[in-house]
Structure formats: C-alpha cells, structure tokens
C-alpha cells in the first residue's frame, strides 16, 4: 500500500542526494564544447538566486549553451543520469522560479540572445528565449510595431522567462498577457525531444499546448525559440491622474470606468502611504492629501484618445474625484507614470527590506482587502504600502521590514501569507503575474484541493515523467502541504535594485 502511495504523482519530493557531482560533470563535459560548462564554486555563485534573493542555493553545475543541439545534449544527459535541470533567463523573476537545485544543473539561456527574424508584414518576430522583452519592441519600432506585454522589468527580463511566468504588465487589461501575444514556442523536453507548440497561424491542431506551456514555470520543457505577435504602435497615449479622499471611492471609480464600457490602456491605483513614499523619491507632483490616486491611460488615434479621455473625465467627476489632471504632453505623461513606476525603489528607500505580494482579487472586494491589510499592519507591527494594477484586480502590497531586526522577516512572511490566503478566500488567486516558484508554493495548498494538485502532477508527468525539470517548484507535494507552516527561510535583500519594478 505504501509503495503504491509513493508512486502516485506528487506525494513527496524526490531525493537527489545520491547524485555524484564528478560523474555528472564528466558526462556533461563529454557532450559540450569548452566554455559551455562551469562547475567551480566561484563560477556557480552568481547563479545562486534570481530576483527573490531570500532563497539561495548553489547548483551542482551551470551550463551556458549556444545552440539547440547543446540544449538537447544537456537534457539527454541529465535525463539519463536522473539529474534535475533548472532553466534560467535573466534571473529577474520574483518568485524564485529559477532558484537552482543544489543537486541539479542550472541551464542558462543567456546566450540565446538573437532576434532570428522579424516579419513586419505578418507582424511576427521569431526570437531566441534570452532576448530581452524590450529589445523586441526596439527592433520592431522602425516598422511602427511593438511587443505589447510590458512587465516592469522589461529592460532586463527575457522573453523565455516571460513565457515561463506568463508575464503581465501595466497594459494587459487592454492588450493581454504573454499567453495572448505568443504564436509559437519551440522547446526541448527532458528526454531531448524537440517540440513545437503553436505555429504562425492563429491556431494549431490538437490540444492548446502553447497555452499550457505559457506560465508553466520551466516545469514542462525548455524553451529554445519563441514567435511573438507584434502590435501596431498607438499614435498617441495620454494619462489622467485622479485624486480621491477615500480608497473605496477610488475603487468604485475603477468599476465605474469599466461599467461605462471603457477599457483603458492602463489603470493603476496607489494608496496614500505609497504616494507619499514615491513623491519624496521622484517628485512626480502627486497630491499628497489624497487617500488614493488613480492613473488612467488612453491610447489610440488622436481622435480616439480625445473621445475616451472626455468619457473618463466625466466618469471620474461623477465618482467624486477631488482633483483630475490630464497629461498635456509626453513629458507630463511620463512624470505621472514615474511615481507609479518608482513604487518598488521607494519602498526600498523607506525600509531596509520589503516583501512584494502579487495576489489578484475581484475588484469589488478591494475594500475588504484594504481593511484587512490595515488590521494586519497593527497585528504584525509592520507597515505596508499598496500599489495595484487596479484594472484587473492585481495587488502588489509591499510589506516593509528589516531583516536585521529579530523576528521581522518571519512576521513579514506571515503577513504576506495571510494576504495571499485572503486573496483566495475573496475569490481570487495567490499570484497574478509573478508565478508560484518556490515563494508561494505553500499557499498553493490553500488554493487547490488534493485532487487538483495531483492532477497538476499528472500533467507534469505527461511531459516530464521522471520529474527532473525544476523539481520542487510551482506545485506542492502532498507532504509539503501536510507540513506547511513549519518552514523557515532567511535573507531578504532584493537583487537588481536598478531594474524598475511595479
């Protein structure tokens, strides 16, 4: 009976401690050219964490392949020897999805950095996974096109990572997430099979495996090439800044905009502490007496924008905005956004450490969530500033703490866990765009039933029967969920402080 239980998918994590580093390194060296494989400790250190630096782990080896054949060779070798493989792009992820496995190989796609083909007529770009998100839009700009999903780390994050996380951004209410802007993903399975998901048409025969691959956190296959859809660049963008003397009223204004049939290009909200924090930092000219501010962006042809801005203004006035400003030029529009985009660095300036949450809730529950966060601030003795992608209900509460003060790190984590669990209770989800990774793996236990989690493991097993791709991430085992609550982590600093986060 016990044996059968242990064979069911997702009961407990596999133990890889018997793996012999010398043997793995030797096998990889046999199939890879010089300069692709690293295994000395000082070469491995830079890869010990991604954007979630609270979790660190030095991999057994790092490979930096330059061709798909090398990726196939690495995966075949690891498959034969039963070695875990963790794929990594730029390492900017915030959920620890690219945290190395201590007995595994870290597969960096950094050298896959070529834009293979850009077809302005068909509005597609074929790119390697290590190409930066923003680099695609830059390459498309001369043709009046761009790649729409714009995660805040877009200057650094790679498209391969965007595929793995189904990255969002400020404009996804109108332009969709990564999954809505991909046409084809080419990848290699752990067994070394090259597979294409999707194509250059609008659909593909069979199951929609392209959708399944998107957001799969490197658990199903390693991406070696991506075709993205390019979008015509809007002629004009204009931003409205509205102040409110009550957070709930601001939330109602968001609902009123949607109810009026308007889908703005961006719709963001900040509470008063967040506004104060960024104002001190970037001097965006935000009204400091407001309890909440909304940023509402409209884009399109000049006529379209003028029509939409007039309608937005009318709704905001009706919703009780205390002040409304419309950007008069591009410089002012950028200034309106500068504050919102500075929220993360401002939190870093206010406090030695901060912890960013990523729950999504139905927007009508915003008031309940904010009151609960206020209560938790008192309960945990920590401050929290709130920024939201208000249009789609995605919250980024930033919990401020000091890891050097005894107990603060633990309190911040408990605070964060309570926010995520409340997100689920309010009918939402623990992660809107950052992914589960290792960070939110325990909260998966509260979002999904045993049967559902078991089904996720079966889906994984269909692609990766031996469970070697990114083991221990995204989906918790039954054992982990049983033990949830007794886990401890340490650390707290955020790497890449120079990359925008919002």
């Amino acid at each position, binding site marked *: 009976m016990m044996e059968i239980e242990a064979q069911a998918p997702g009961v407990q994590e596999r133990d890889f401690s018997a793996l012999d580093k010398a043997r793995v390194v030797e096998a990889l060296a046999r199939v890879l050219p010089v300069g692709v494989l690293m295994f000395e400790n000082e070469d491995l250190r830079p890869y010990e964490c991604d954007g979630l630096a609270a979790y660190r782990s030095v991999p057994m080896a790092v490979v930096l392949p330059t061709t798909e054949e090398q990726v196939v060779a690495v995966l075949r070798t690891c498959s034969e020897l039963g070695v875990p493989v963790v794929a990594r792009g730029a390492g900017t992820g915030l959920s620890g999805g690219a945290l190395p496995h201590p007995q595994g190989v870290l597969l960096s796609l950094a050298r896959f950095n070529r834009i293979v083909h850009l*077809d302005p007529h068909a509005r597609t770009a074929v790119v390697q996974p290590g190409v930066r998100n923003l680099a695609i839009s830059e390459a498309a700009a001369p043709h009046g096109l761009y790649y729409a999903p714009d995660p805040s780390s877009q200057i650094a994050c790679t498209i391969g990572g965007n595929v793995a996380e189904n990255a969002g951004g400020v404009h996804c209410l109108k332009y969709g997430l990564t*999954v809505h802007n991909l046409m084809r993903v080419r990848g290699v399975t752990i067994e070394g099979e090259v597979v294409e998901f999707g194509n*250059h048409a609008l659909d593909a025969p069979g199951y929609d495996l392209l959708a399944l691959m998107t957001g799969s956190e490197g658990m199903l296959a390693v991406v070696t090439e991506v075709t993205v859809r390019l979008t015509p660049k*809007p*002629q004009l963008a204009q931003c409205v800044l509205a102040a409110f003397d009550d957070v709930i009223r601001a939330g109602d204004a968001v609902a009123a905009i*949607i109810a009026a049939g308007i889908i703005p290009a961006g719709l963001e909200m900040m509470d008063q502490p967040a506004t104060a924090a960024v104002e001190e930092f970037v001097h965006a000219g935000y009204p400091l007496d407001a309890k909440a501010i909304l940023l509402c962006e409209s884009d399109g*042809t000049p006529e379209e924008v003028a029509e939409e801005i007039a309608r937005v203004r009318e709704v905001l006035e009706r919703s009780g905005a205390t002040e409304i400003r419309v950007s008069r030029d591009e410089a002012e529009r950028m200034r309106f956004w500068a504050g919102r985009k500075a929220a993360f660095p401002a939190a870093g300036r206010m406090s030695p450490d901060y912890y960013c949450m990523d729950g999504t809730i139905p927007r009508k529950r915003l008031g309940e969530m904010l009151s609960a966060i206020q209560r938790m601030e008192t309960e945990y003795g920590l401050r929290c500033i709130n920024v939201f992608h208000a249009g*789609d209900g995605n919250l980024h509460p930033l919990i401020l703490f000091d890891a050097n003060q005894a107990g603060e790190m633990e309190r911040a984590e408990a605070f964060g866990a309570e926010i995520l669990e409340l997100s689920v209770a309010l*009918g939402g989800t623990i992660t809107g765009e950052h992914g589960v990774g290792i960070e939110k793996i325990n909260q998966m236990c509260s979002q999904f039933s045993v049967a559902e989690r078991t089904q996720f493991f079966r889906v994984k097993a269909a692609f990766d029967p031996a469970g070697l791709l990114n083991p221990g991430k995204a989906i918790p085992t039954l054992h982990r969920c049983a033990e949830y609550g007794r886990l401890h982590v340490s650390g707290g600093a955020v790497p890449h402080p120079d990359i925008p986060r919002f």
Partner: protein
Amino acid sequence: MEDSVSAWAERIRNAAATGTALCIVGGGSKQFYGRVQQGEILDVSSHRGVVSYEPTELVVTVRGGTPLAELEALLATQGQFLPFEPPHFAPGATVAGCVAAGLAGPRRATAGGVRDYVLGVKLLDGRGQVLTFGGQVMKNVAGYDVSRIIAGSLGTLGVILEVSLKVLPRPVAEATLRFAMSEADAIERLNQWGGQPLPLSASAWQEGGLTIRLSGAEAAVSTACQRLGGERLDAAESGAFWQGLREQTAAYFAAAATRPLWRLSVPSSAPPLKLAGTQLIEWGGAQRWLVGELPGEQIQARASALGGHASLFRGGNRDGEVFAPLAPALLALHRRLKTAFDPAGILNPGRLYQGF
C-alpha cells in the same frame, strides 16, 4: 443540480470500470464537427444557469449547459459581449459546447479566440472527480493553465460543468466597407492594414470582393472610414453579412451541403492557396475556407507548406482523421495528457484523433 453532477460522476466511474465509451452531448449543435461520435450518450444539457455575473469585473461564470444565446442575451443587457463571436450553428448551442469546440467567429483575428477568454473551468474528469482550474479573475498564474487547454479539446479531457469567461464592452461604433479586389491584393492589403493602428474587427474576401468591419470609438471608426474609402454597407446589410459568416448561413457555405468544407488555418500573409475549389478568406488572411473535392492529403500538404494546418470542417469522410496529423513527439504528449485526465479513455474517444 448537485444531484445530477453526482449521478454523472457515478456514471463516468462505472463507464471507466467497464471500459464503456461515453459521448458527451449538450445542445447537439456541433455534432457534425470532429470525427464520428461513438459511445453511450451522456446528456449534460440540464446543467444550466448563470453562477455569477459582475459586469464591472468583466467576468461571467455559467454552468456548461447554459444556452449560448441566453448568455449572450444577458451580456447584451449590460452592453457587453463575447468578443470571439462564437458560432452557434443551431438554436440549442450551449456554452460548454462552445468552449469544447473552441470555434471563433469573424472577430477572431483581432479580438482573440475562445481560449483567450477562458479564465477558469470546473470539470468532471475521466475518474469522475470534480476539479477546478483557473478562476474568476483576469490575471492568475497559479498552477498550470489547464482551463485554456479545455478550449477546443472536444470533450476528450472532461465534462465542462462550469466555465468563467472574460467579457468586454461592445464597441460604441461599427462600420462595414466593401472594396473590389483580387485575392492576392486583398491578402496584401489586409496585412498592411493589420500593421497600422486601425480599428479593424473582421474581414472577408470572396469572388473579387473584400469586405471589412471597423469597430471602436466613434472617432476612430469615422476617421478610418474616411481614410480607407470603399463602399459603406448600411447597418442591416452589414449585420446580416457578418452573421451569415459567423453562423455559416451565407450563400458560400450552401455549397458545403453537398461537398466537403475545409478550413485552412495559415499565416495571415500566406500567398493565395491555388487549390481547386471555391474559397472564402477571413481573419485578415489567416483563415481560408475551401469547398472542393481535392484529396485531403493534398490540402494538408499545401496548408503545411504555408506554415499552417487544415481541418475537414464539414462533410467528407469523418471515420478517418479530420484534423491535421501531429508530429510524433506532439502526438505522444497528447496521448499522455489524455491519459492524465481520462485514464480509461472513455470520454468522447476518437472525436479529436483516432485512438484517443
């Protein structure tokens, strides 16, 4: 309601134990689609009704058996709609059938397809378990995106009990323009327009005429009309035209009553097909209908050479494969996924591909 779900779960468990194939039926409006049906009928059309609808959240959750027409009428009361314009093909079409078939209408190229609007599903899998994936919010990356693969899976992975869909406000203004144009010119022009900030929402070329629809803000539509020229159709005529395409009641499709109808899904910029038969082009060049008697292999080969795939949409031999063959590695993944959801292989077996 829960009684019927438990009864179906029980029936699925028994069928799994005895290896009895089940044929899932809702409104029966798309029985012509996919490969020939087999197995005992499992009628799930009684599981209907709206679970929740919050117009300001842009999300609706309904039970699978809810008539598609009922859902669309409800959304219309709030000035909202399903942007992928799913075809009904018969009055009884259900929401679950719409999702399982994964078919989209004229707006597909610019608004997205069924899978782009599926936010969550509640399924009864081949073990008779009720499983929920995704949710009722627009941004959700917790767990694998199982709900989107249900779109277009033709009931082979589970019975759709509930589905949450993203909805959008109806565009304020719409206009339909017609131009006299050759096939090659139409493909060229549609791709050029597609790269410009124009409010295009549908297109159709047949027999020397290109018809396009513009949707959006008043100002955007009127500016685009002035810029593009062409002959403007009145509201009644344009409404009937796009409806005829969506529901395949247009004259073009009448020929498909006696001859096979093929659907070729290709890159929008693919050159003219040059295949014998009559053609209709939609989706900015990306969807090409072909009524004709050519051998399936020849049509598949042409679609594949252009970077796309073909499916035998109506008529022809439905005992053979009707969808494009899958590469061996992809086929293996399909089989394993099917087993993950339906280990006994009893849910709509063979409807999508022979053998699973």
